[in-house]
């Protein structure tokens, strides 16, 4: 326990010092890792701890991104004020989808498919109605001042992403310690047994998806402020849903560090294929190559290592 604490303190110190000494390119990679770990943790709360596999978490991410962006562009809100509003919107969408789906008794694959359909419905709506500027997407006016949640120096996005990641880790850590987390694991392992023990299965699942929706929406606003542009495919597209699922499944669903580990691994794979592509010109199309590796990893991990890479890590640690 003490050694784990020391290791964590060292990792945190390294993460804080890194952008001060590393080249700008690594800072950008760092932002991506912590951002992915953050939205991955959102998936992990409902998909990992509570065992409700979702194929449509982009519905929450996109709700957050669009809420804060519309509040800014159409209603002239300050971005920092729009952020909590986006989080609330994500929580509400999570709550509504949970109430509808779990009331109907959807589990397993059926729940995964209905979340996919919700995300798709939101994508089509965002693509067709005028207050989202339809398929054109929304461009946030660049005005890089910290008061606007825009930074000239990417290092601030790095520290913000790091802070978000730490918050998400603390939430997951809390879940492994308190009764709410224990109830969720009970629901995941055996709903009927959990119900027999007096757990209100429906209420716990609704709480988990509401929390998960809030976190994903916070990630959506962060994304919109970082890139200053969103469109229906970026915000609600199936790619984002799959990304959130992948980092968690690869790293280890239902573990505290799974999403972070998965984000590190997938970003590492992405950078490695990019490097490979710069050497081998025939592979100039990088994106599909890394996605192929992700897909193979997903298949192998689900089939052979259901607890993800975190399990591997634990074993090594225990033996050392």
């Amino acid at each position: 326990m003490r050694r784990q604490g020391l290791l964590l303190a060292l990792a945190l110190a390294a993460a804080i010092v890194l952008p001060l000494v590393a080249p700008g390119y690594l800072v950008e990679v760092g932002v991506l890792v912590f951002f992915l770990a953050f939205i991955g943790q959102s998936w992990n709360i409902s998909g990992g701890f509570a065992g409700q596999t979702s194929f449509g978490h982009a519905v929450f991410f996109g709700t957050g991104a669009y809420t804060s962006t519309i509040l800014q562009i159409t209603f002239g809100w300050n971005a920092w004020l729009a952020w909590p509003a986006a989080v609330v919107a994500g929580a509400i969408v999570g709550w509504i989808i949970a109430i509808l789906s779990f009331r109907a008794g959807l589990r397993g694959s059926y729940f995964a498919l209905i979340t996919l359909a919700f995300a798709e419905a939101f994508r089509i709506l965002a693509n067709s109605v005028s207050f989202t500027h339809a398929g054109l997407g929304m461009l946030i006016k660049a005005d890089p001042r910290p008061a606007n949640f825009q930074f000239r120096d990417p290092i601030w996005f790095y520290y913000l992403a790091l802070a978000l990641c730490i918050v998400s880790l603390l939430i997951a850590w809390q879940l492994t310690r308190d009764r709410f987390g224990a109830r969720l694991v009970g629901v995941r392992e055996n709903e009927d047994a959990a119900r027999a023990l007096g757990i209100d299965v429906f209420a716990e699942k609704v709480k988990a998806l509401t929390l998960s929706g809030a976190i994903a929406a916070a990630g959506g606003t962060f994304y919109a402020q970082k890139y200053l542009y969103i469109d229906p495919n970026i915000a609600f597209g199936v790619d984002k849903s799959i990304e959130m699922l992948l980092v968690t499944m690869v790293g280890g669903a239902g573990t505290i560090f799974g999403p972070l580990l998965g984000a590190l691994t997938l970003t590492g794979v992405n950078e490695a294929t990019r490097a490979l592509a710069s050497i081998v010109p025939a592979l100039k199309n990088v994106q599909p190559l890394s996605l192929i590796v992700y897909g193979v990893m997903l298949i192998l991990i689900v089939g052979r290592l259901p607890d993800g890479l975190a399990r591997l890590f634990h074993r090594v640690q225990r033996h050392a």
Partner: protein
Amino acid sequence: MLDPGILFAGVLNGLMAGGIYVLVAVGLTLIYGVLHIINFAHGSLLMLAMYAVFFLWRLSGLDPYAALPIVIGAAFAFGYLLYRLVIGRLSHGRDENILLITLGVSIVIDNVALLLFGGNTQTVETPYASSFVQLGDAFLPLPKIISFVASLLICALLGLFLARSDTGKAIRAVARERQGARLVGIDVDNIFALSYGIGIACLGAAACLLMPTYYVTPSSGHAFVLVAFTIVVLGGMGSFAGAAVGGLIIGVVESLGGLVLGEQLGQIGISAIFILILLLKPSGLFGVRQ
């Protein structure tokens, strides 16, 4: 409001598209009925079969309809092996795991296609592509009519095969009662792989029937995956008749949705039906209540 002539043409066009959806959905529902797994790779495998049709035409000039036996055979072999080598081996335990494995398979297939074939839209040119048949006020493309008839014919043949042949009886026995089938000496694992192969063979047939009027890109699978699931859920998971009726309904809904709500918003009909059916009547129109 809409002119009745346009409405009539819209319904007919929807039915024609629905005919091919039936074939896609029958494959999905067969796999679900026998293996009790949701094959998320269905759309990607259809895309792959469409590329097979395209390359057969491009490299040897083979007409898509003439390619039917080749592509059906190849799709069956591919599905059979995919089940034997990947899905069956890794699919122990919970159904979400199988869903995730087939998701992984679809990610790999989509991106291998993108890497090898590029992102361009590919089409097959046939001499009959621009022939039309007049039906009342509506003009229908000849290949759509051929595809519609062929699709329903293939479904009927498959139904006959399942009803009459020994293999078909074994498949139905496994779908009904897995343990019992094993006890009377049916090789259940082999039936699983066969059923998966037949499900994918349906996609091979659908690809041949689609290509004369449709195009293929590496993301074509996405367009079909939600449609196929909606049909199967609407008809009732595992129900053959349900897939047939559901396919035609969804074809018409899609066509009329585009007419009434416009190109963009019209697509929402599929998602809306899917969500409503799952929430209100998850067993579908013809499904058995679990």
